């Protein structure tokens, strides 16, 4: 993973526009958050291999970044993106790592289903 280069990431997002793509979207504060701090309200969600098509996708902000994909009937949104990788399978992997390096959010786009 590399730190987000907004220009490069935008180009890759554009590359998937108008195609059927599989999305992985996750947000998490970890299964132990409420164990370590009982005042903490733990929440998280993920969806793996949602098949969507977006006409317009953007990455914005000054870092951490936000990504929005305008899909046919709605939106895909992620906040807190700090790192990205365009991997050997042609997938765009974006993630947000917190101040301790722990993953807090992930948004991934692929033309083939995730494993």
């Amino acid at each position, binding site marked *: *993973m590399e730190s987000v280069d907004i220009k490069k990431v935008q180009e890759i997002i554009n590359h998937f526009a108008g195609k059927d793509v599989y999305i*992985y979207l996750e947000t998490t504060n970890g*299964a132990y958050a409420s*164990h370590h701090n009982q005042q903490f309200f733990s929440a998280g969600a993920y969806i793996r291999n949602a098949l969507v098509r977006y006409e317009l996708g953007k990455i914005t902000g000054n870092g951490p970044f936000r990504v929005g994909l305008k899909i046919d009937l709605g939106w895909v949104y992620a906040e807190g993106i700090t790192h990205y*990788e365009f991997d050997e399978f042609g997938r765009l992997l974006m*993630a947000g790592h917190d101040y301790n*390096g*722990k993953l807090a959010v992930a948004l991934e786009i692929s033309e083939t289903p995730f494993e």
Partner: protein
Amino acid sequence: MEKERHVLVVFPHPDDEAFGVSGTIATHVKNGTPVTYACLTLGEMGRNMGNPPFTNRENLPKIRKQELKEAARVLGIQDLRMLGFRDKTVEFEDDEMLSNVISGLIEELNPSLVITFYPGYSVHPDHEATGAAVVRAVGKMPKAVRPKLHCVAFSNDCVEKLGEADIINNISPVAETKLAAIKAHRSQTETMFKDMEEKLKNQDPQIMVWVNNERFWTYKFSD
């Protein structure tokens, strides 16, 4: 520690075996007891990836699989089973299918001791679901032929609700092996070790108690 015929360890995540149980495992291996570790998932949803991150969500399972194999090698576990479930989803699997998987292992291996998490007192939903599946599998065996069932509990209320652990294994003779097993899970434990290194060097009493003692609650079946 009593000499066992065969020990079956069942946990959901690579590294679950390392923290609270690896000294006990290493001791059984040293005693010549075969140990099987059935690990349900590859910890696909782990949040630790180094700082700065050296891997990503998609590659993490591959790394953790290698780490798990390395930890097993360090501990001398000959029989490592990766059961192919997915991190965070164990509780959503069919309960009966899950306990049948465990029953199959028990039937095959005929262990005299099974180690897992104490359902209700083990914090992570995968821990709870794994422990519950093992308890169901052992519980449906006739009482006379059940293996011993030792459970790990660490919820904030575990001592309050269960009482003190009835089994405390002092594993100091194999403490180095235990630390090496924890270290083998590098992606998950590297940052933690950085904080601990100094304390370990100074034999900080609190850390040494944590390293040297492994506690278990014998599961109490209602019959």
